[in-house]
Structure formats: structure tokens, C-alpha cells
């Protein structure tokens, strides 16, 4: 079967669904292709945090916009996406980290983010159960928050369907052919012809790009998480411990505590297997900070991928192949970047020019300016 579209989107995560929604609303004829079900890649495995505390102005600006967009979703979609602004509390256990926080807060304040450096005593007021041992200071933004990824995807899906967008689910892309228009061959033999292609397949982006001869500096790595039973709300913000043996955790508005840490060294590859060492480690790291967590019961342990770039900033824009756009390498921040990147990327694909500065995320950049708040 042959199908013709204006834009074919490869990847049914937050970036693809969001961009698809904004394009379809403008009357663009889209096809969205997803290898499994919506959110089966990184979006559905992330823990749903949304923060503005970054170190580059592009990231900070986009996150501010994302917060705004998340806050309007319930009204837009007609059901809650469990968006809640409980804040992010970043902990500095060394003077070096305090200096990094101070430098970032200066940039964040220029972008009008409501952020401040707290003393350990002030941090204790935000998280009353917090262990203050060795704590030098904390960066706190009460406007940061969380949302439920699958509710957001459901909302975008309904919008895409309402505007006659086509969804090809449980169907893998075999290859993209560099013809005019592009031809995308799917696993089940479906042939999709499209003027433009947006490749936003998270960890699978690089291997699909290879089929059209495009090399992208993307490296997927495994990250793990645990979730506990529901408990009465006692933790407002996402707590982030930046020590080498640190961790980050929050409590959903539905009561579960979700905890993760960034493994050192990293675990490269597209993999979603759960390791034996993770649960005891995360249990120890979380209870070191908030001892009361020791009584919570862990229900599940799972893994998913970050798609990293050399500098930890996303890769967004038109590729050297005319008409082929890329949005990947979210480096662990795809869900929170999603709505804002989707909105600007849809504009860029339609108009051919950015309506805000995306040069820091350009595919051709030098990758020298690293994001310091991983």
C-alpha cells in the first residue's frame, strides 16, 4: 500500500507526538510511525520531572515555555495530565558544586526563573525529613514540577486524530530512501511517501539515520528507576543529590516515590534490562538523604534509555539531508523539553526558519559547551 504525506514523523514519544499535534493543527498532513506503542521508548520510561534549572539560556528558556505549556494541557485536552509544581531542590555537598549553582542561578535569573540558593536550614523547611549532614547549600525553584507522560501522550494522540493525522503503530521503519519525495519502508511492507521527514526516535534515531547515510553523534545509555507503593504525600520537590554516589527522587501526586541515580561509569547501549546492583544502591542513597523512606515498599524496578550527545544538549534541526529533520539526543530531558521543542520545531518545519534561537542545539555545532546540570 502507498501513502502520501507532507511530513512523516518517525517516533511516537513526546517529541514526535507533540510536533505531530502542532503540525496537524496547522492543516499539515502527517503520518506518525512508532515501532511499538506510543511512549514505549524513553518517554514512557522517564519519571516525569520538569525543571528550569539548567546552565544554558536556550535550555532555560525552553523549559520555562514547557512549564507554561504543561500547565495549559488539562484545559486543552479536557483531562488532567497530573501536572504539579512541587519544585526541584538541588543539593550541593561541596563548595565546587555551590559555585556551579551560583553561576547557573545568575543565568537562570536573567531568564526570569524563580530560583534561589538556600542555606541547609532553609532547605530543611522545603524537605523537613532531609538529612543535612555535609550539605553546603541547595538550589531551589518552586515552579519546577512533574507530569504523567502517558496522559500527555494520550492528549496529543487525541489532537492528532481530531486533525486527521495518521498513526502507524507497532510498525518498525526498515529504511528511509533519499528520493523526492522521501520513501519510508516499514516492516510490514507499507510504503510511505512524504515531502519531509522528522526523525525523533530517541535511542533508535542514529541507526535509522544510518539507512539514509547520515551519521549522528548520539549514544544511548541505560538508566534505571524504582517506584514504591502509594503513600500519603510528604515530599513536595524532586530532590537531586549531585554527589558521585548521589541520586534523585520525587513523590508523584498519586503518592508513589520514584527514585533513580546516574550510574558511573555509564552503561552504553539500547537496553532496558534491570541490574541487580541498582535497587540496593538506590535504596541506600535515598535513605541517606531521607531516612523515613526506609519503610516504603518498592513495587517495581525498570530501565530505559537516555540518548546522549557529546555536550549533553539536544540535537534539533534540519540535517545535511534537505527535508530531513532530527530531534533527538535529549540527554535525559526529552519529556520536559518536549512541548516547547515540539511547538518551535513544528513552526520551523512549516516556515523554514526558527521563531526562537536554536543554535545551541544545532546539528553542526562544536559540542564544546557542556550542560553542567545533568
Amino acid at each position, binding site marked *: 500500500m502507498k501513502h502520501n504525506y507532507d511530513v512523516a514523523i518517525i517516533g511516537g514519544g513526546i517529541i514526535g507526538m507533540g510536533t505531530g499535534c502542532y503540525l496537524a493543527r496547522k492543516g499539515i498532513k502527517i503520518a506518525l510511525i512508532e515501532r511499538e506503542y506510543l511512549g514505549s521508548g524513553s518517554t514512557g520510561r522517564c519519571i516525569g520531572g520538569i525543571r528550569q534549572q539548567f546552565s544554558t539560556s536556550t535550555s532555560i528558556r525552553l523549559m520555562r515555555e514547557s512549564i507554561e505549556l504543561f500547565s495549559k494541557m488539562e484545559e486543552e485536552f479536557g483531562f488532567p495530565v497530573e501536572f504539579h509544581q512541587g519544585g526541584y531542590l538541588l543539593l550541593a555537598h561541596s563548595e565546587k558544586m555551590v559555585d556551579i549553582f551560583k553561576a547557573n542561578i545568575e543565568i537562570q535569573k536573567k531568564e526570569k526563573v524563580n530560583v534561589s540558593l538556600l542555606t541547609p536550614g532553609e532547605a530543611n523547611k522545603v524537605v523537613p525529613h532531609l538529612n543535612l549532614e555535609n550539605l553546603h547549600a541547595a538550589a531551589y525553584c518552586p515552579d519546577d514540577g512533574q507530569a504523567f507522560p502517558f496522559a500527555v501522550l494520550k492528549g496529543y494522540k487525541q489532537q492528532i486524530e481530531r486533525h486527521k493525522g495518521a498513526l502507524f503503530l507497532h510498525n518498525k521503519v526498515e529504511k528511509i530512501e533519499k528520493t523526492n519525495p522521501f520513501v519510508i519502508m516499514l516492516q510490514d511492507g507499507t510504503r510511505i511517501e512524504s515531502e519531509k521527514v522528522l526523525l525523533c526516535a530517541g535511542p533508535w534515531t542514529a541507526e535509522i539515520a544510518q539507512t539514509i547515510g547520515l551519521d549522528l553523534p548520539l549514544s544511548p545509555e541505560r538508566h534505571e528507576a524504582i517506584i514504591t*507503593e502509594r503513600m500519603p504525600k510528604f515530599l513536595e520537590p524532586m530532590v537531586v543529590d549531585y554527589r558521585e554516589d548521589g541520586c534523585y527522587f520525587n513523590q508523584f501526586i498519586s503518592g508513589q516515590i520514584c527514585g533513580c541515580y546516574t550510574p558511573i561509569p555509564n552503561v552504553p547501549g539500547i537496553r532496558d534490562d534491570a541490574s541487580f546492583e541498582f535497587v540496593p544502591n538506590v535504596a541506600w542513597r535515598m535513605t541517606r538523604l531521607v531516612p523515613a523512606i*526506609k519503610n516504603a515498599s518498592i513495587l*517495581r524496578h525498570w530501565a530505559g534509555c537516555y540518548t546522549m550527545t557529546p555536550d549533553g544538549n539536544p540535537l534539533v534541526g534540519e540535517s545535511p539531508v534537505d527535508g530531513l529533520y532530527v530531534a533527538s539526543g535529549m540527554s535525559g530531558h526529552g519529556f520536559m523539553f518536549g512541548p516547547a521543542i515540539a511547538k518551535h520545531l513544528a513552526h520551523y518545519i512549516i516556515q523554514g526558519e526558527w521563531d526562537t534561537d536554536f543554535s545551541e542545539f544545532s546539528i553542526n555545532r562544536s559540542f564544546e559547551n557542556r550542560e553542567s546540570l545533568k
Partner: protein
Amino acid sequence: MSDNILICRCEDITEEMVKEALDSGITTLEEIKRFLRAGMGPCQGRTCGPILRSMLARKLNTSLQNIEEWRKRPPLKPVTVSAFIQVEGEES
């Protein structure tokens, strides 16, 4: 049968909510679990799993063995955080 029947007792998911999800084009147990959170509570789907499986089979007009089970996640039943810390302590 009333649509208010509870299918997942841990997460308060009713038959009506499952039917709505099935009508929206969901075709796998994995999606039911993730979009609705059915089977995500303390019993980890021991109660609702078989019911959801048969509802999905009926919806897709296929037999039960064609419905792939959802992915099992460790630790399979609730285990306290402190139990894991004891394991860690014995090792170090």
C-alpha cells in the same frame, strides 16, 4: 454487568475505564498497564491481569494465547527499602 465494576483493585480502575481505553485503539496488555496504571499497584496485576487479558482477547476477537502477557518487573511483590539496605550492608 455494571460498568462501575472494579477491575484493578489496587489502582481503582473500573470496567468502564478499561473499555474506554480499548475503544481508543489500544491493542496490548502493556498499553493498558501503562496508560491506565492497571496492574501497577501492590498486587502487581495478580487480580486484574487475567481479567484484562480476557477483555482484550474479546475486544480483538482472538483467543487468550494470542495475547502477550505484560512484562514482569522485579521485585515481583512489595519489598521494603530497608530490606534492600540490609543486603547492601552485608556485602560491604
